[in-house]
């Protein structure tokens, strides 16, 4: 599935004034690609994800999924929230079945499919455990399976690794990137971590400070064949990192 973001602007009304979160943002996410959105805090990254998830409507412009405007939450778009947000009171099995359960699609076939996903990603033995008994990486994989369980065409990832420590983060982001590539889904990752974006994506969209506008778009064709860990060691990595760093224009 492909996504077209077409001249999107978003202004919020708040008691103490109007907040312009996004201004005239346009870019496209081709089928089967992994696109990262990088920007400083408060650049409207999360707003963009809310719009893509159909939770809000843009003030101007349009967001198109396979040419059709996104009108509300749809099973075609799967959302992976900040931190894993697994429900502590549910077993892993009942956590990954949350989506089908809510959609009234908790069928035998669906359960088989989810069971296979758990087995593929080495979580089958932990099916009856509760989330607190799992490591950070396993929890993250579990959150991904919960998203995949409703078979979305597009995955939205909202800084899913931000709560993990550095080493776990490297391993988990590589792991998740591999799973997403294998599944052949289109993915959009929001992050403030430049290295993470370079290691995982086919395309990087750099957003500016509020109001968020598109600063630059990078296609990572030359690193296409490398896996996330190899990319971090590639010669192009540092150059691209520095370039994006400049574009972000970080002031402290």
């Amino acid at each position, binding site marked *: 599935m492909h996504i077209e973001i077409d001249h999107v602007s978003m202004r919020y009304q708040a008691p103490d004034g109007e907040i312009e979160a996004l201004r005239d943002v346009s870019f496209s996410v081709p089928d089967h690609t992994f696109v990262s959105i990088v920007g400083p805090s408060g650049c409207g990254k999360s707003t963009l994800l809310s719009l893509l998830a159909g939770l809000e409507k843009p003030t101007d412009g349009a967001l198109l999924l396979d040419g059709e405007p996104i009108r509300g939450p749809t*099973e075609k778009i799967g*959302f992976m*929230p*900040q931190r894993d*947000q697994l429900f502590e009171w549910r077993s892993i099995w009942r956590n990954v079945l*949350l989506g089908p*359960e809510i959609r009234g699609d908790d069928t035998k076939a669906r359960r088989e499919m989810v069971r296979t996903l758990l087995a593929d990603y080495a979580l089958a033995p932990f099916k009856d455990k509760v989330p607190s008994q799992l490591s950070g990486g396993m929890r993250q994989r579990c959150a991904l399976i919960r998203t995949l369980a409703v078979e979305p065409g597009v995955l939205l990832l909202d800084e899913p690794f931000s709560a993990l420590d550095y080493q776990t983060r490297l391993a988990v982001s590589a792991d998740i990137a591999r799973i997403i590539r294998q599944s052949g889904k289109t993915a959009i990752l929001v992050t403030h971590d430049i290295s993470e974006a370079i290691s995982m994506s086919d395309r990087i969209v750099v957003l500016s400070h509020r109001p968020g506008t598109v600063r630059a778009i990078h296609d990572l064709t030359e690193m296409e064949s490398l896996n996330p860990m190899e990319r971090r060691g590639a010669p192009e990595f540092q150059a691209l990192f520095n370039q994006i760093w400049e574009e972000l224009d970080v002031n402290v």
Partner: protein
Amino acid sequence: MSDQTLSPARRAYLKRRKQENTTVHLLRILLLAALLGLWELGGRLGWMDVFIVSSPARVVQTLAGLWQSGDLLHHLGVSCFETAIGFGLGTLAGALIAVGLWWSTLASRVLEPYLVVLNALPKTALGPIFIVWIGAGTESIIAMTIAISVFVTILNMYAGFCSVDPEKLRLMQTLGATKWQTLRKLVLPANTDTLFNTLRVNVGLSWVGVIMGEFLVSKAGLGYLIVYGSQVFNMDLVMASVLLLACAAIVMYQLVQVAERLWRRVT
């Protein structure tokens, strides 16, 4: 793990822990025995007037008398019944209203100042009003008990509902969950701790309501025995009733603990 696999340091640590725990238990029992002994002795040696302060032996005697006449079970039963009904209705009504407030932002915004005032108001002031409106009987006592527990329940539960992680709410939204599903599958289960904490608080509050109510209107119950005992200057009866009250409150508190353990095992 068997004893052989433990290192000597670990074994020494465990032994020390066990000894410490035994000491604490022993001291607790000793403290109680000392207080009771002093109380009894003080009365017998004439340091205190047993007519005013009673004594452990006289309390036991009174309890035995109450038991034989059947009064003990009657009064205890009446108070426990009122507390259980008031506790149940107060908690249930409070939880339902809290769900209503969570459901409707308009309702919660409109009702907020009223809840704050009603929560701050000493509910005992409402006693006379209940008596005039619903009569000097069990109904008034139960109304009093509900009044005392319901507002705290609403405020605690509502605060718990509002503190659910917004990211989890967002997740539910993207999965297309209805408001009812969000309540059932996220908000309520996320607040199990809040619920049981509220229940524990309400055990104490319900007893306050029942005893206050019985002070005002009753013809039976532990509160009635306390007031009656003090009016006829039978301090043995007052002390015995207070002791029964403490036991009943502990039992109810423990019942909540058992219910919580059962609940967690089931889910």
